[in-house]
C-alpha cells in the first residue's frame, strides 16, 4: 500500500518534513501528497526526486496532487534501497573533516609526496557520504587556486555538497588570494569550530 499525505495548509518546509518523516517510517515505493501551494508542490517534487522517486504532479482544483513512484520498472537506480532518506550529512551523524596542511603527503621525497597528495585528493570522493569538509592550510591552499590540477576534482566534491575551504591568511601569504578557483576563503575560527563539530578529523 502506498502512503497518502494531506499537507494542505502547510508552509514550507513543513510538507517536505512530513514526507521525509513518512518515508523514514515506511520506505514505500508509492507516495501521494496533497498540497495547496506552488512552492510546496515544487519542494515536495524535488525531495522525492532527491530520494530517487519518479514524480508526477497534477492540479486538482486549487490544490496539487504530487505522486512519487520507485521500484522495478520506474528507472530507479539499483542503489535506491540503500539511499538514506535524509541528507547524507545527517545519516548516523558521522561527519569527517579532512585538513590538508601541505602540498606533499608525508616526509621523504617531495616529488613523490606531491604525487601522493594529488592522488589522495582524487580518491577523497570515496569517503562520501561521510566526507563533510575539506579544509586547506599552509601550502595546501594552492590546491584551490588557479593552475592546480586539483581544482576540477575539488569542484566536483563541492558540487556534491562537500564544503571546500581555504585558509585566507595562507592564501594571502602565498599571494594567491585572488587566484582561488574553488571553495570558500575561511579563517582559523571556522577551522577550529569545524574540528569541534566534526565527528572525526583527518589531518594530512
Amino acid at each position, binding site marked *: 500500500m502506498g502512503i497518502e499525505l494531506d499537507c494542505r495548509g502547510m508552509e514550507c*518546509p513543513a510538507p517536505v518534513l512530513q514526507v521525509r518523516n513518512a518515508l523514514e517510517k515506511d520506505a514505500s515505493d508509492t507516495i501521494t501528497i496533497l498540497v495547496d501551494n506552488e*512552492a510546496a508542490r*515544487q519542494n515536495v517534487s524535488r*525531495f522525492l526526486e532527491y530520494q530517487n522517486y519518479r514524480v508526477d504532479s497534477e492540479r486538482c482544483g486549487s490544490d496539487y496532487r504530487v505522486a512519487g513512484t520507485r521500484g522495478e520498472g520506474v528507472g530507479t537506480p539499483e542503489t535506491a534501497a540503500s539511499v538514506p532518506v535524509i541528507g547524507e550529512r545527517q545519516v548516523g551523524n558521522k561527519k569527517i573533516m579532512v585538513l590538508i596542511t601541505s602540498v606533499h603527503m608525508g616526509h621523504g621525497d617531495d616529488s613523490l609526496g606531491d604525487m601522493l597528495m594529488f592522488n589522495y585528493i582524487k580518491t577523497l570522493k570515496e569517503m562520501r557520504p561521510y566526507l563533510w569538509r575539506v579544509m586547506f592550510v599552509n601550502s595546501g591552499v594552492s590546491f584551490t587556486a588557479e593552475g592546480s590540477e586539483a581544482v576540477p576534482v575539488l569542484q566536483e566534491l563541492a558540487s556534491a555538497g562537500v564544503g571546500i575551504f581555504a585558509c*585566507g591568511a595562507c592564501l594571502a601569504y602565498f599571494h594567491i588570494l585572488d587566484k582561488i578557483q574553488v571553495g*570558500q576563503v575561511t579563517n582559523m575560527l571556522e577551522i577550529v569550530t569545524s574540528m569541534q563539530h566534526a565527528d572525526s578529523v583527518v589531518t594530512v
Partner: protein
Amino acid sequence: MISTINNIRLTQTVKGAGCAAKLAPGDLDRALCGLDLPVDDNLLVGLEQADDAGVYKISDDLALVQTIDFFPPMVDDPYAFGQIAAANALSDIYAMGGIPKTAMNVVAFPAKTMDISILRLIIEGGLNKMREAGVVLVGGHTVEDSELKYGLSVTGFIHPDRILTKRCLLAGDCLVLTKPVGTGIISTAIKAGLAGQAIIDTVTRNMATLNRDAASIMLGFTVHACTDITGFGFLGHLAEMVVYSGCGVRIKAANVPLYPESLEWAAMGLIPAGTYNNRSFRGAFVDFDMNVSQKVQDLLFDPQTSGGLLIAVAAREADMLVAALHANGVESAAIVGEVVAEPAERIIVE
C-alpha cells in the same frame, strides 16, 4: 550564545523567515502601479525609480538617505536576530554610497506568548550593530502582533552628486558580489531542524556582518552602480539593474560565492516560497546555460537576508577592488560576471 529562552525557537513561531517573508515582487508592483505620488524637486531618488533607499536633497552638498527594513526571525537566537535585522536595514544606506547616522526600532511583538526578555535581547543585538556602524538610536515604535518582527528605519547622509543607484551599469563593467548566497535556503533548513551548528554559526556571522567595510572600500574605486542583495535574490536584484540601465549581463554561475551546504538542501526541496516568487517574477529575463544545475538556479533566485553588495566596477579596477575587499576581511568577494551592451536587458547565466 543563548539559542533558546523558555525553549522557544524563534523560527518556529513565524510563517516566513527573514527576507524570504517579503511580499511577492509582482504583488507589490500591482499595489503601487499608477498611484499619484506627491512631487518635490528635492526628491532625488524616490518610489518612482525604486532603489535601495530614498534620497532627499537638503543643500548642494548634503542629502538625506532613508530606508526601512523589518522582518520575522530567520535564526533562533534573539540577539543574533537583532544583529542581523539591523545589519540588513543599514545595508540599504551603504548600497547607495551613504553613511548611516540615526535609526529607529520597528517592532511587532507577540507579548502574550513570548517573554519580554526576548525583545530585550533582540534590541541589544540591534544596538550592537548600530554602535558598530556609528549610528544613534533616536526612538522607535512597538506594536503587539501575533508574529515577531524587528527591523530599523535608518537615516543617513550622502553627497547629492555621489549617489550610487542601480541604474548606471556601463557595458564593460565587472560585477562584484561581496557575500555568499544561500541564506534563504539555509534559514529554511534551520526552521526544519536540519542545519548543524557549524553552518548556523557561519551564516549567522555573515548575515550579521555590516556592509560598511565593503561600501567604504568600494567608494575608492570607479563604481558605476551598486545594490544590495536581499529579498528578491541575486538574479532578482540583478534584473532590476538590467531593466533600469538597459544593459545586459553575463554571469558565471561557478564564480558566484555560495554556501556549499545550501546546494544539498536546495536539491532536497528546502526552498522558501520567495525563491519561486522571485523566479516567476524575473525568470523571463534570465537565460540559463544547460550546464547550470537546477539547484544552482534555485540558489541564484534565493531570497537573501542581509546579503552582500553587488557592485558594477570599471573592468580595469575589478581585480584591485576584489583584492582590497579580501585584504579587509570581505573574504567572499568575487567577480561574478560582466556588463554587456547586447543582448540588452537580458541576464545570461553560464
